[in-house]
């Protein structure tokens, strides 16, 4: 737990503002956004030096407002000052702009690429809102939210075999686009399992995904970008409110 926290802090360059101006690649964002985590994972995988410009909670910086005037949301990638927004668009951009750096995040076959894009779109359709409800951050039926996540995981269990062909990741031998799209939600999936006291990634129901989840989270580029589940739970307790006292005390 402590180890992950230290690694996560160490590799983030929280530079002074003068140095920030010279960095070629900057990420505007803040943990624990899974969308920011995606960008940090892909930059780590590609070995791209970068710095994280941490956005304060509830207080958007001038730089963010100027870089993403349309949505005013994180993450934003600044590459030589040019902004790219939307996490999956950023991931594809990094894959394409650093195509010479292995691994390729999307397969070369157009059909396989379309399949990964389809499932990544599906992930963002099914997970974010349901997780917010389960965190207590959004009003909603928690049972329904849990059922939605479980149903989505069932479909993704099948997709895992189709995309990865029985190998370690959706991307096959290496972490790929869809691994990042789904995997970036794992911090919160595991956190809400504790917070809401439910099983989502049930090894009995989705054995391949359960094994993949452990493997993914243990990958160096991921461990570096996505802190341990305890930190997600801590964050939620502090910020999301309306949690049962029992959950807070027993862990």
């Amino acid at each position: 737990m402590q180890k992950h926290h230290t690694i996560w802090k160490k590799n983030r360059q929280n530079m002074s503002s003068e140095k920030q101006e010279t960095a070629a690649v900057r990420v505007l964002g803040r943990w624990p956004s899974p969308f920011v985590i995606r960008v940090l994972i892909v930059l780590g995988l590609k070995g791209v030096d970068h710095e994280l410009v941490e956005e304060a909670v509830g207080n958007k910086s001038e730089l963010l407002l100027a870089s993403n005037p349309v949505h005013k949301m994180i993450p934003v990638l600044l590459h030589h000052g040019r902004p790219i927004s939307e996490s999956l668009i950023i991931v594809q951009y990094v894959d394409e702009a650093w195509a010479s750096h292995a691994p390729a995040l999307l397969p070369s076959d157009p059909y396989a690429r379309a399949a990964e894009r389809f499932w990544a779109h599906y992930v963002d359709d099914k997970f974010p809102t349901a997780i917010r409800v389960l965190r207590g951050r959004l009003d909603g039926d928690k049972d329904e939210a849990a059922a939605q996540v479980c149903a989505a995981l069932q479909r993704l269990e099948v997709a895992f075999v189709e995309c990865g062909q029985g190998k370690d990741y959706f991307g096959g031998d290496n972490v790929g686009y869809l691994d990042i799209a789904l995997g970036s939600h794992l911090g919160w999936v595991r956190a809400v399992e504790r917070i809401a006291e439910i099983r989502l990634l049930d090894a009995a129901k989705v054995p391949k995904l359960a094994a993949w989840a452990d493997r993914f989270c243990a990958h160096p580029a991921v461990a570096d970008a996505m802190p341990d589940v305890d930190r997600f739970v801590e964050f939620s307790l502090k910020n999301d409110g309306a949690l049962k006292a029992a959950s807070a005390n027993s862990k």
Partner: protein
Amino acid sequence: PWKAMHDPATQIWTSFIAHEQKRDQHQSSKQHGGPTMAEKGVKVFGMWASPMAIRVEWALRLKGVGYEYVDEDLASKSDALLRHNPVTKKVPVLVHDGKPIAESTIIVEYIDEAWKDGYPIMPADPYDRAQARFWARFADDKCNAAIFPVFTATGEAQREVVREAQRCLKTLEKALEGKKFFGGDAVGYLDVVVGWYAYWLPIIEEVSGADVVTDEELPLMKAWFGRFLAVDVVKETLPPRDKLLALNKARREQLSA
């Protein structure tokens, strides 16, 4: 010609020269360990009045790819559609040599990659690609959500939703600045994705009595509408205006009932 194209029964599009298919990339496809026994060729499951389905047709025609169009009755979807897209069950679905792809924007990128030696749909530069994808997302997520209320609202409420729709479209319009098309000198991905506005928005305006895309408020977009509708592959595919108008009038009445 459009009458023949848009009969509800399955249509074979014959006047396109089928683009030579890259057998190799499909031979080596990991998915099924080789070519399937399923049908060869390109099929589009769509619906004649669907703006999402027409994107797929535009992309295929830009590439000069022949396809079979299956016009679905959305109130009674075919077994084939449900088999090809069990996850969302929606149109459009592209079936290429028996392999289905769903989600119109994903299909358009697939078409660009599967027939990569044809007309370039996506920009070449990674930054331009990211911008095109960003605006496509913005249009589908924000602009469409802003446009729909215009269709149903009336009176003072309509004035408000029109202003909101205009705000959204003005933001999108920035991507047109200094260019003939969103794609530059020629149509590209973003034109294919938002091009439906050029035909459908005037119909929505007529049905709802609202003025959204005007010379005063959205001059660049208005001008682009004219240019886009003049493009050959667009002209050839548009559904008949009177039929589309009638359908949307009926839908509006249904929704207001």
